């Protein structure tokens, strides 16, 4: 068996607004338009992924929240409807997906060996969280690849950001080891936004773009700083500044997704490509890809 590899690492935020505005057949509500900069960024990235040979999407989602350790989807097939509890007016999505349980079990075991608390989720009635559904739809609306779903451990919330980051880097390392051992080509997805302060009111027409802007200029400056570091391949500095970013920009990176991705990609020193940046109900969202092949070309 050949060695598996991570063929792409993606920061893929999950605002339901983007699926809503796209009007896919799976989603019940319909929209006129909206959030085009982000949606078109996702469209370009979809095309890129279509050109890549990969076997599985591994997604770490902020909206599967677990208290005791890191959990992994462990049921081979799910079919249900995902209703966003915060924006049910925008996202009621009928999904059907396959899970690569073998790879999930392998990551789970390697993380446990690394000293992390882990658990497989075997309940067939479980509803897959909307963060996972949205990020996966935006990258692969055909759902023709299996996924591995990883929860966001709330233990991360009990400790300071530095301690949390160390744990997520270890989970990322375990993920990379499992992918390599599997012989599979994996696309890794960190399903989080950057700055994450929302507006608490919604326009009568949600896609009325007159009202869409970043919540606070300070958030925007932080987002730009983080994106600059990504584009310059300065992942270690990104991680060093992450605790302050989380605190000062109310960043969803607190959920650990991006730290996990950096750990899995072994703290990339090659530039990331930013496909789009935009706000969604005040939060800062960036679509970013790390392509390990670009490291080989540049080295």
């Amino acid at each position: 068996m050949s060695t598996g590899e991570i063929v792409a690492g993606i920061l893929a935020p999950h605002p339901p607004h983007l699926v809503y505005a796209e009007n896919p057949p799976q989603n019940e509500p319909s929209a006129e338009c909206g959030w085009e900069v982000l949606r078109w960024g996702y469209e370009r990235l979809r095309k890129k992924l279509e050109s890549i040979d990969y076997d599985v999407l591994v997604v770490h989602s902020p909206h599967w929240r677990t208290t005791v350790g890191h959990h992994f989807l462990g049921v081979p097939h799910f079919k249900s409807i995902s209703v966003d509890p915060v924006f049910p007016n925008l996202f009621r999505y009928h999904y059907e997906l396959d899970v690569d349980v073998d790879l999930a079990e392998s990551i789970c075991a390697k993380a446990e060996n690394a000293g992390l608390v882990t658990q497989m989720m075997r309940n067939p009635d479980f509803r897959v969280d909307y963060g996972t559904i949205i990020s996966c739809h935006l990258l692969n609306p055909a759902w023709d690849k299996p996924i591995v779903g990883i929860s966001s451990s709330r233990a991360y919330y009990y400790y300071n950001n530095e301690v949390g980051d160390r744990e997520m880097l270890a989970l990322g390392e375990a993920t990379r080891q499992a992918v390599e051992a599997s012989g599979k080509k994996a696309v890794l997805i960190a399903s989080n936004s950057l700055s994450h302060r929302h507006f608490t009111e919604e326009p009568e027409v949600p896609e009325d773009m007159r009202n869409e802007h970043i919540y606070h200029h300070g958030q925007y400056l932080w987002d730009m700083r983080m994106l600059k570091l990504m584009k310059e391949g300065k992942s270690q500095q990104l991680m060093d500044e992450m605790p302050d970013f989380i605190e000062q920009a109310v960043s969803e990176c607190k959920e650990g997704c991006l730290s996990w991705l950096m750990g899995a990609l072994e703290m990339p020193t090659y530039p990331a490509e930013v496909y789009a940046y935009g706000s969604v109900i005040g939060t800062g969202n960036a679509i970013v890809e790390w392509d390990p092949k670009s490291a080989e070309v540049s080295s």
Partner: protein
Amino acid sequence: MSNIVMGLVVPGQPHPLLAADQSPAWQSLQDSFDKARQEIEASDAELLVIYSTQWPSVIGHQIQADPEPEWVHVDENWHAMGSIPYKFKMDAEFADAYCAAAQARGLHSRTVAYKGFPIDTGTVVALKLLNPDNRIPACVVSCNMYADRAETLVLGKAARDAIEAQNKKTVAVAVTALSNRMFTQPIDPKEDKISSLKDDEWNRKLLEFFAEGRLEDVSQLARQFTAQANGDNKLKAIWWLAALMGQNNRYQGDVIDYQPVNGSGAAIVSLVPSTEAAMNQEFDEDDVEYYGGDRKVLDSGSDTSGDEENVDASASGQTGDTLVNTNAAPKPVGAYPHARREGDTLFLSGVGPRQAGSDAIPGGAVRSDDGSPADYDVEAQTRAVIENVKTILEASGSSLEKVIDVTVFLIDMDRDFAAFNKVYKEYFETIGATRTTLAITALPTPIAVEFKVIARA
């Protein structure tokens, strides 16, 4: 006599429902839930109103309005404990009334009624254990992740408004843990305990208050508790419950149970309204009647050229109109804004002479604390009224010069008209506003004069 017959505090983790046999603590909670269920049944309640900290919202507050939500629920963390099939009976009519009452108090709220909407574990557990046969219709409201205490108090008062308007005997249920620091490593359920001694001590202090019926004191203590013991969502559920039940300490409190659930503090407490107060309350600095909002950023279509620093203008849900509240004017004494813009016209609520912040009355109150008549200076009161009118107009982007019509209310026409009229002339002589002056028997606060004003926006 209020329609609120009882308040309950219950935990929202699934352990008492799904895994009681694994732990004496969880079994005790299940038994205590059953005791609370029996108390509800004995109360002849017609409605359960629930606030769950496990239903987060971002866009204001959401209220469940699906008459019969049905699903097989699995908790995202405790999935190995099993599935929870449910079919509940919700009071959709009350949900609509609650939503309208919340909006009338300036809150952003909406009902939700979607097939497959993910009802949270806390609500599911509470309804399965407190109302297993759906004998009593329920209503559930979300926990806004950004809401502060003032906003949550208004949400509780809105629930009370709707309950009284609907005239339904109601049990209010706050689904919340006390301390919420859970173990992050697997534990032996038989050895479950509160995760720290400090959290345990804080929980027990709160429970002392509950046992004495001091719900309002717990509400006011919540922020300190949260800082010390990782309170569940800042104990917002207690803020809501205290406001809904009337913001006092007059309850017969019963701490039915207190147990650990994976390290968190899980208490079941009942509070039945009583005539006996534990003791006097402190002044509550968060007690507002109307929520003006603090985020007018979406209101891009309105004129915000006034004193933006202290103005909270929020869309009221109708095209083209805007509600205005300002901290620079005295706090309204009811559920109404300082002003409302309709097109190019600005309508002010009745304005008195009280001073913003202190509520002091220039010229003195018209009666003493014991209710006996007091001497007062109507000139000073009139001047203060007009200055307050001016403040509200300017906060709304208007000015005294744009006043169209004034209605003046005096409690003693014979005594006060001449002095009032003299001050009025100083301000309004060149403005040309129409005016009507009425004698009335009393005003809501101990003041002698109030203005009702219409102006150009």
